């Protein structure tokens, strides 16, 4: 699969920097945002093939951010990263989420899921 660009969104900076570096070692061009507002700004200025979002964030919640992404960038698939017990069949799944990963995230599993949703998206 060709290289792709991912944006990770979570308010835990140390988590983000470590994950971005690890994805870089695996040929994934990744960037991060520490808030919903920062993510919207980065998406306005750059193209991403996939977005990975934490559900619980200060200020704009993951659910609100997903709503904005689905409105402004409907072509970009969203993966949810959450510490909660969660399933894609559950009632609380925000509309637009195509995959989810429980925290702590296994980096290889994250890459597999990113590749899968990008392939499904026809990149």
């Amino acid at each position, binding site marked *: 699969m060709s290289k792709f660009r991912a944006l990770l969104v979570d308010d*835990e900076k*140390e*988590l983000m920097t*470590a*994950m971005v*570096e*690890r994805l870089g*070692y695996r040929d994934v061009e990744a960037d991060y945002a520490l808030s919903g507002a920062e993510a919207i700004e980065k998406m306005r200025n750059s193209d991403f093939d996939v977005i990975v979002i934490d559900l*619980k*964030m*200060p*200020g704009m*919640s993951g659910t609100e951010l997903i709503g904005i992404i689905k409105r402004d960038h409907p072509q970009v698939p969203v993966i949810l990263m959450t*510490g*909660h017990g969660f399933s894609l069949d559950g009632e609380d799944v925000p509309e637009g989420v195509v995959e989810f990963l429980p*925290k*702590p*995230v296994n*980096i290889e599993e994250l890459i597999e899921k990113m590749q899968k949703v990008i392939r499904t998206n026809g990149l």
Partner: protein
Amino acid sequence: MDYREDMQPDRIMLENSLAFFGAVTASISHELNNVIAIIDQNIGLLADLLITASAERPIPNERLQRISDSVQAQTDRGVRIIKGLNTFAHSVDDPIREFDLNQLINNFTSIAQRLASLRKVNLESDSEAQELMVTSSPFIIQQVLFYCIQRALNRAQPGDVIKIDVHGSDTQVDITLTGRVDQVDNGWNEQYIQQLMQIIFGSVEVEARDPEELIHIKFSRKAGI
């Protein structure tokens, strides 16, 4: 029809107490999970660096130092969270006992800060460093504070501060929680809060002295026994 309409008051109180305990522990477990996630990624990063390192290309010391610092910081954070959780969990050991109210308020403020942070709101407690021993129910006091904080958070704007002031005299304690508040709030169970406070404080005095003051509780340092 609300299934609780036919319930006895003590059964409703038990359900509310469990819901409160669940909400607090769920919030703490979420934060603890973040700590583990950061340590997990740092260990993964270290493993990645070891794979790519060689005798000719050793891992720079500053890279190792940064990972070590991060793991240490998260371990310290985890210890603080668990200590807070442990203190909270033991607050149900005895329904009524003697305890340091300042310590209880400080611990609960840091637990509730995570909920407030999600709304970009700060909780400030001015409870003093010295002991303020009272004989009462630590669990119910925290429950009352939790509902008050939740109510203030319902109306809070990003950047707001919710203040919890505690002052003690020889015989009496004053707790004041100040935040943005509407007179009508659907999420606020006034009757239940009053009921809780009557149990522990007896002749409790609850008043709002100005529009932003959410609750003002005065009680004797040996109330409830």
